[in-house]
């Protein structure tokens, strides 16, 4: 009995080891995550503000197929990206590369925040200093008024 079981296990193991390389041969060794990563950085050319990874359009699915093919042919993700940039320009990249004129996109918001903070700080400084330099007029309480306040306070308790 145990011999039969051992035989079956051995057979299954053989089938398994046999089946594995043939499956690897028919399918190109392309990691779908890599395809997705490349596609996610490319703008879908027929949509508004969608990446090639997210768009259900035919053009985007053809582009994903091209990405897959180029990766399967041994190109690196950066080379595949360069292939698209060569044909569509930097416009195809959803986030422009951080150099040259494009740096404005990253630096301007930072500059705006700094300027805003400086303006806010200056205003706060001015408001706080104005209050200190112009003290409120002292409240004059005459005898009749202080008497009334005393009465009302006592009446309450």
């Amino acid at each position, binding site marked *: 009995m145990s011999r039969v079981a051992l035989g079956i296990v051995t057979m299954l193991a053989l089938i398994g080891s046999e089946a594995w390389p043939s499956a690897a041969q028919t399918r190109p060794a392309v990691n779908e995550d890599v395809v997705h990563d490349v596609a996610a950085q490319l703008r879908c*050319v027929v949509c508004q503000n969608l990446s090639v990874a997210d768009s259900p359009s035919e*053009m985007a699915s053809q*582009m994903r*197929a*091209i990405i897959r093919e180029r990766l399967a042919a041994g190109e690196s993700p950066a080379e595949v990206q360069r292939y698209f940039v060569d*044909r*569509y*320009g930097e*416009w195809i990249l959803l986030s422009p590369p951080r150099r040259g004129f494009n740096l404005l996109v990253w630096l301007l918001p930072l500059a705006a925040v700094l300027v805003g903070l400086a303006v806010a700080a200056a205003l706060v400084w001015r408001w706080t200093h104005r209050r200190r330099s112009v003290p409120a007029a002292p409240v004059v309480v005459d005898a009749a008024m202080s008497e009334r306040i005393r009465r009302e306070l006592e009446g309450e308790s």
Partner: protein
Amino acid sequence: MKRLWRWLIPLAAVPVLALLAYGFRVSPRDIPSPLVGRPAPGFALATLEGAPLDLAVHGGKVVVVNFWASWCYPACYEEAPVLERNWRGYRERGVVVVGVDIQDKREAALKFVGDFGLTFPVAQDLKGTVSVDYGVYGVPETFFVDRRGQIRLKHVGAVTDEVFKATVDRLLAEPASP
């Protein structure tokens, strides 16, 4: 200090307004193609009738590569007669019009070709590789290739008689070799 502030705030608006003025004058649809001035990518496709269509065969001619689709209404419907008319007018002078049908069904494309009586070769780009090689993002788009095989103009939208004639006449006037 007060007077400085009074000037500084309106002045700060100037670069913002300049940026907006620049941004609103630039059409987001007019994306400059990096391919202009570069060699036209070669392709070998099959026509709708199944005949081979290889761009390399037309070397030395002025080639007009037009990307279109039967669902692209109205622009592709407007330019189809223009392309056919000019193809007939210029074909004896060394000009080739090549249609590339993209993201389309063969039957719909054949009907379009039949309806407009197109006689220039039309191929179907089934896998989209030629479209991507030419950086096509919509239809119609037309590339004018000179006799040395360089892309000289990318026209987005329906081609008019004026654009076709002006461009092709200019390219025909150039010598075939540098």
